[in-house]
């Protein structure tokens, strides 16, 4: 690590990036934090007076609380469904042979690279009143269901967008598991279920936990999916901020909501990390 060179070298190497990040991450966040305390007047705009009114309005108004609750609920539901699908899917993938394994891994995680607007648009066509899903439901004898612009549509599309983020860490932790260990458990008389529960599960739990964290964080701040599949009425935190900024033009209130989203996100991530680390210490001794 330490080579006898002037101590200035590392500073010169990181300085361009550091300057850019201080100027374009730290500074704008501080400015937004200050903005969230500015008084806003609907006729004159942002005033040079300070108030806690925006935060007070957000935590006391049922409209905003309802949107925050929906955001947490849908993000939690998405995380749960992603774990329920991602875990067995990663396991099935890990038991495939190449070339199928690589091909299907590509199919599962490849959509990650397709713009989220495109994927949301695809779901809006599938879930529309005359879409394929409704045609299928009618074929099976169920009446036409209103899917588009419901919470169901948002969750379906969120699961589609987030599933790769769940499969990737689980798949990575499965790669570290020697398949012979599972076979050894069978030889020693364990049932398939016991082997899964006692040998495979402990290995993948860490992957699943880190996957859940990513999925929850990204779902809670998702914008394009609720924007295109929730319609104008079903808002989530991100679409709410967008409306406050672009339609209501109440920037200070929008800034206050954005700061709440940021702080909630950081608290959940830190608390979760603590919990996972404590768990890792317990299980690994």
């Amino acid at each position, binding site marked *: *690590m330490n080579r006898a060179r002037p*101590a200035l070298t*590392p500073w010169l*190497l*990181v300085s361009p*990036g*550091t300057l*850019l*990040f*201080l100027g*374009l*991450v730290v*500074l*704008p966040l501080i*400015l*937004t934090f200050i*903005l969230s305390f500015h008084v806003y007047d609907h006729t004159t705009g942002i005033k040079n007076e300070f108030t806690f009114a925006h935060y007070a309005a957000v935590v006391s108004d049922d409209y905003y609380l309802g949107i925050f609750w929906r955001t947490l609920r849908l993000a939690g539901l998405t995380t749960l469904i992603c774990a329920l*699908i991602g875990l*067995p*899917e990663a*396991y*099935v993938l890990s*038991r495939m*042979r190449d070339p199928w394994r690589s091909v299907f*891994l*590509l*199919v*599962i*995680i*490849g959509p990650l*690279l*397709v*713009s*989220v607007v*495109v994927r949301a*648009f695809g*779901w809006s066509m*599938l879930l*529309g009143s005359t879409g*394929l899903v409704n045609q299928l439901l009618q074929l099976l004898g169920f009446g036409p269901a209103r899917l588009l612009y419901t919470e169901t549509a948002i969750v379906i*599309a969120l699961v*589609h967008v987030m599933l790769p983020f769940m499969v*990737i860490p689980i*798949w990575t932790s499965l790669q570290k598991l020697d398949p012979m260990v599972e076979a050894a458990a069978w030889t020693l008389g364990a049932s398939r279920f016991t082997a899964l529960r006692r040998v495979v599960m402990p290995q993948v739990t860490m992957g699943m936990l880190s996957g859940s964290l990513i999925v929850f964080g990204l779902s809670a*701040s998702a*914008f*394009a999916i609720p*924007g295109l599949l929730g319609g104008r009425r079903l808002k989530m935190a*991100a679409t709410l901020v*967008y409306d406050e*900024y672009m339609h209501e033009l109440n*920037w200070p209130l*929008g*800034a206050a909501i*954005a700061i709440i*989203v*940021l702080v909630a*996100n*950081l608290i959940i*991530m830190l608390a979760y990390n603590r919990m996972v680390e404590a768990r890792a210490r317990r299980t690994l001794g």
Partner: protein
Amino acid sequence: MQKNGPIALLFHTLVVIFMLAPLAVICLVAFTPENTLSIPTTSFSLRWFQAIFVHPDFVDSFVNSLWLATLAASISVALAVPAALAIDRYQFPGRDALNALFLSPLIIPHLVLGVAFLRLFALIGATGSFAWLVATHVIVITPYVLRLVMAAFSGLDRSAEQAALTLGASHWTVFRRVTAPMVLPGITGGWLLAFINSFDELTMSIFVTSPQTVTLPVRMYMYATESIDPMMAAVSALMIALTAAAMLVLDRAFGLDKILVGQK
């Protein structure tokens, strides 16, 4: 190697259908001859692809996004390579804090970054500037580049560098002739991943683009919230085709699983 049972394979098939269905339906509807979003059954038509080219705003946004992603990815690599070198090879005060600073855009929601940039730009009068838009994209994609480049640096065999030094090469020559060729795959992979991320970015961009600098995802989002016609499907199908081509190149060159999975 154990085999998957029939239930496992059925489950797998359903997951694959679920993942591919929205993309498949877009690609089918894009070829419809009708005026509505319908899956063509009897005849195919390219009329909605032609319609894109009489909408100059879509073409402009596409060109704009290409330039934006190219510039942002290149600048990001130019910043990330020296930073990764410093963080990987030197112990200096504030090293961990800097590493955290560079990776911070990963844990700050893009929405929050978007409103923060908007506030800064409003104050310094930079709204609508293309150069500042590039800078915001550099911030968002640098963490991805940094992680790939750092992985390339830390996976490097240092004895080759030491051998070159012993044989009398200067530090600069060692970097140019020994280190750089070994980390080049990581850097190229980082550039491509950064390019794709910048090209697809919506949530942050929607706050900082102006009518002159609208990117393709922002244009598509705006268009889809107002009217939906098969032209949107045609544009989407083209984006899927482009992404698939980029994926094939990435996969052939580096192994997509390595880039997407290995570094997480």
